[in-house]
């Protein structure tokens, strides 16, 4: 058994039991961060703050929300929006944060792709990050069911139907997921459970894994420079703060994190109070009606690109393409055969690959929302093919990349 002595202070008492000094060093003051990074490295903190906003606003919504097909719409639009003091604020924060969190996730993800931050020991960060993306997608989808408006109902109908597997006609599976022939009470209650319990638990676990996977390889930097963290840390601790290539996570980088968070929150609260329509679709203010599909039905913007990969093909090919799109990003560390961990602009063909991928995803996103008619349909088809071709090409264009 460890040896305990009479504590000289509360801090000492805790130290003997929890080693808080050591934890503080490992996680904060001697968690070394390269100086050679830009504000894109603060997106992790922005995501933490956004997640916290989702959690807090969600708790208050949970106090008044009723997961019942007869009362859900009323509890959201009457009780929460009209009756509860500041209920509208929680709903707006929750809805806007749920949408904006995906913008930040996409920025975070493409930062990683651009700077090659998924290579050489950082594979697990990438994989856990992509699992978080999947978990957030499930969280967003299940949350979208809860107001039980027209979009909730029809999104629930369409997305669960994906699981029939096209020609496989796995209707039993669809009914199993729904607990009914159509989205009804069982469906609403189980998606409520998923949204407030199971998926949040998974997200919390994955966030832990994501942070843990980052600690040993350290964060990447914007030049792809290999830094000897021990040597640079010694230099910093010896007093040569300006000469060292690294800085402390807290308070050095934390202060910059907070600055970025401050600017982000200005943007965020502007959306919450004045421009929330993009995150709270008008159609969902009509109560669910199982006998009437809205004239235009589309997912939230962050699902549009993968939705568009599904849409232009016949059902079976569409489902295969859709499944491909869902998993392919996870495999990036292994599809990229290049030996270089440097920014894309120094990687020749990969730079082109990167920008085409980014622009193509935006095109897919736009086409996913526009009605699938005429030219939009054709552009969507070409973009979907391009997306698949790009991923198939990736191992080949990176295999022959020269070492820089």
């Amino acid at each position, binding site marked *: 058994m460890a040896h305990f002595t009479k504590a000289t202070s509360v801090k000492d008492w805790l130290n003997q039991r929890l080693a808080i000094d050591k934890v503080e060093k490992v996680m904060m003051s001697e968690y070394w961060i390269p100086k050679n990074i830009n504000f894109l490295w603060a997106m992790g903190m922005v995501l933490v703050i956004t997640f916290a906003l989702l959690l807090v606003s969600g708790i208050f919504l949970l106090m008044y929300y009723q997961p019942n097909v007869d009362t859900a719409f009323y509890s959201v639009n009457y009780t929460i929006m009209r009756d509860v003091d500041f209920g509208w604020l929680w709903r707006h924060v929750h809805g806007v944060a749920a949408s904006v969190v995906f913008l930040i996730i996409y920025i975070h993800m493409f930062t990683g792709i651009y700077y090659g931050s998924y290579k050489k020991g950082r594979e697990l960060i990438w994989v856990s990050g992509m699992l978080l993306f999947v978990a957030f997608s499930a969280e967003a989808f299940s949350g979208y069911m809860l107001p039980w408006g027209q979009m909730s109902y029809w999104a629930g109908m369409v997305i669960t139907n994906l699981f029939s597997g096209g020609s496989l006609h796995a209707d039993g599976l669809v009914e199993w997921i729904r607990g009914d022939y159509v989205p009804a009470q069982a469906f609403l209650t189980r998606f409520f459970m998923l949204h407030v319990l199971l998926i949040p638990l998974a997200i919390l676990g994955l966030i832990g894994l994501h942070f843990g996977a980052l600690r040993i390889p350290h964060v990447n930097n914007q030049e792809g420079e290999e830094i000897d963290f021990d040597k640079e840390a010694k230099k910093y601790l010896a007093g040569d703060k300006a000469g060292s290539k690294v800085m402390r996570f807290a308070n050095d980088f934390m202060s910059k994190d907070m600055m970025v968070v401050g600017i982000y929150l200005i943007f965020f609260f502007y959306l919450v109070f004045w421009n929330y329509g993009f995150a709270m679709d008008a159609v969902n203010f009509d109560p669910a009606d199982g006998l009437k599909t809205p004239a235009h039905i589309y997912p939230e913007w962050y699902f549009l690109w993968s939705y568009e990969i599904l849409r232009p093909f016949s059902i079976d090919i569409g489902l295969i393409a859709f499944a491909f799109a869902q998993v392919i990003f996870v495999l990036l560390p292994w599809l990229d055969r290049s030996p270089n961990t440097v920014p894309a602009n120094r990687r020749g063909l990969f730079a082109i690959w990167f920008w085409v991928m980014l622009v193509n995803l935006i095109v897919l996103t736009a086409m996913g*929302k526009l009605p699938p008619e005429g030219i939009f349909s054709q552009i969507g088809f070409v973009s979907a093919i391009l997306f698949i071709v790009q991923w198939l090409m990736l191992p080949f264009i990176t295999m022959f990349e020269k070492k820089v």
Partner: protein
Amino acid sequence: MKNKEPLILAVVVIFSLITYYLVEPYAHHVMHKHVESEHFAYADLPALDKTGDATRGQELVVGAGACTGCHSIEVAGMPAAMEPQMAAASYGVNPPDLSNAGVVYDEKFLAQLIKNPAHALKVEHKFTEESGKMHPMAQFFGAGGDIDQEAADMVAYLKSIALKAEEVTPKIAFENACGRCHAMSYENWTQMGEKPSFKDKKDELAFDIKVLEYQDSLKAYMGKLPPDLSMYIRSRGEHFVSTLMENPQSQLEGTAMPRVGVTAEMAEKVIEHMKDSGDTKRAERESVGMNVMIYIIIFAIFALLWKKQVWRDLH
């Protein structure tokens, strides 16, 4: 080393804005038909060039015009002859009380309504010769004199008994313009009127049954039950609601909904009432929003100053 951050920020912002533009303003522009407001001018209806005489109008309304055969005029001491659900069973919808018709509706519209209801209401497609159906409101063919003068007289009478425009509350405007076909449950409104609070469950159920009977007649008359408008200001938006009132056919071709015929001022009041139901916290949202913005800007400034101080030693 050159500071790349402004360039990176520009790239992030530009790509985000392009995406936003494509999925929001542009996509909605493509998906939804754009209908220009006509500012409630009712340009298709003939101008009212005769000066009406309210006294003669009154004689016509209760006499030869036979308005009071179906319509009540509460302010003139003429209550409804039957309960709303009975009236709806006879006419499809409860004929409106005319107390405030003169202020809620446009005068050109009213005059045309008297002479040719289906035309004024833009529902001629429902009452064609093939359909064999007649509009429940009988056309007025004149009482022997100049029909335009007689219509003007009746309009003058209706105006003389109505409230003044500034006395009309958003609620009154809504009840007159929309409330006999549309419920607004969040404001406790049914097509039969406001739902009273009942102590006895039996009385409440009896009232509910009357509402259901009313709705059945309405459904038969309109083809389907007109929707509850509690959240319509959020699900449709102000522009849609306003242009729909002005001319339902412009937004929903072939709809059974008649032209509402309200004045521009009353249309604003109707929309105000819809906001009172579906967007009650709009003023609070503005004021809380301003305070939060002021705070968050101060927060960002202090964060910036802290960062500058910490980073002074790092370079």
